[in-house]
């Protein structure tokens, strides 16, 4: 399941998408440790599989939370969260 967490405001659209397809079988769930702000949390879904979600208290302030990780214009883009997910299941909209 693709879960889009975030919002859109006057300055743009700030969504982190987690595709939870492989989370249940992902050893160690490295994204949870990789995020410097700890925004990813383990959670049981409706069918008792352990997946990863974006913490509820972070969902409405992603722009400022992720600002430190985001490259300056022209810089390379390798976000710790995206790099940690070997299955490529984490994506940012901005």
């Amino acid at each position, binding site marked *: 399941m693709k879960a889009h967490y975030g919002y859109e405001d006057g300055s743009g659209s700030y969504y982190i998408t987690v595709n939870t397809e492989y989370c249940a079988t992902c050893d160690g769930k490295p994204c949870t440790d990789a995020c410097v702000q700890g925004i990813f949390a383990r959670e049981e879904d409706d069918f008792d599989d352990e997946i990863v979600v974006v913490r509820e208290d972070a969902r*409405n302030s992603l722009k400022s939370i992720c600002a430190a990780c985001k490259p300056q214009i022209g810089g390379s883009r390798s976000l710790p969260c995206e790099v940690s997910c070997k299955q490529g299941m984490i994506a940012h909209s901005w």
Partner: protein
Amino acid sequence: MESGIKQVDYWRWSESRWTNPEISDWKGGLVTAGIDIGSTSTQAVIFVDGKMYAYSSIRTGSNSPDSALNAVKWAMDGTGMTQDDLNFTVGTGYGRVNVPFADKTITEISCHARGANYLYGPTVRTILDMGGQDCKAIHCDEKGSVTAFMMNDKCAAGTGRGMEVIANLLSVHVEDIGDMSFQIDEEPPPVSSICVIFAKSEATNLMRRGWSKEKVLAAYCHAMAFRVVKLLEREGVEEDFAITGGIAKNKGVVKRIESLLGIKALEANFDTQLAGAVGGAIFAKEFFEKAARKREGK
């Protein structure tokens, strides 16, 4: 001292209940319930052997467990059924952990998808749920299982709460907004603000500039539609498309969403606020049967 002026709650929508006349005897059947506690409304839906038997839809009070109990009692009113007859109950919605008699809780996202699949049929692929305090776009497969979702709960624009604020501000009953918003000569541009607080001051300014209530409502419905269409665009809209939640009853918003998307939403011949609780009652049946199979070692 009494002023003699009667306070009118323009935001108040009608509560309702229903019993299925086609099911004469529920005794001996598998009775399951879905209780959806939202921020502004609570629904209790009762299924017998996988068929909708009764429901109620009430305003959520200050105490969620009481709202759950009141809703289920009213749904059972006149049926002879009591809470002891429920084989399995699922709590869903924002207040799902506050359903004291729930056997399991399920997110409103899963429940809305499953409920829409039952109410609109298996061709539904995109559901827009416009609730009291948030707005969700859900994609599902032919079985009603969620494949993607996105949610906006950052501000009240595009939600039932936002509509209630405007109803009170303009002294228009919330149930009349849709029709009134079409009593205009020409569609005005949407109010520019997407935040309900600013939309409120913008609406006040437009009234001062001589705009009619109808024209302001049209501009507000247009802005709401514009905002939720932006949310839908993140994952695209796959047909069939359905709208659930309280705002689905507001033609002023629905028709404008349809016109912005160039897609017609499926017609609802039931209360669109029921989808979450219906999904809950269906899940309740599945969980009960799964547990029974497990007990029998199957």
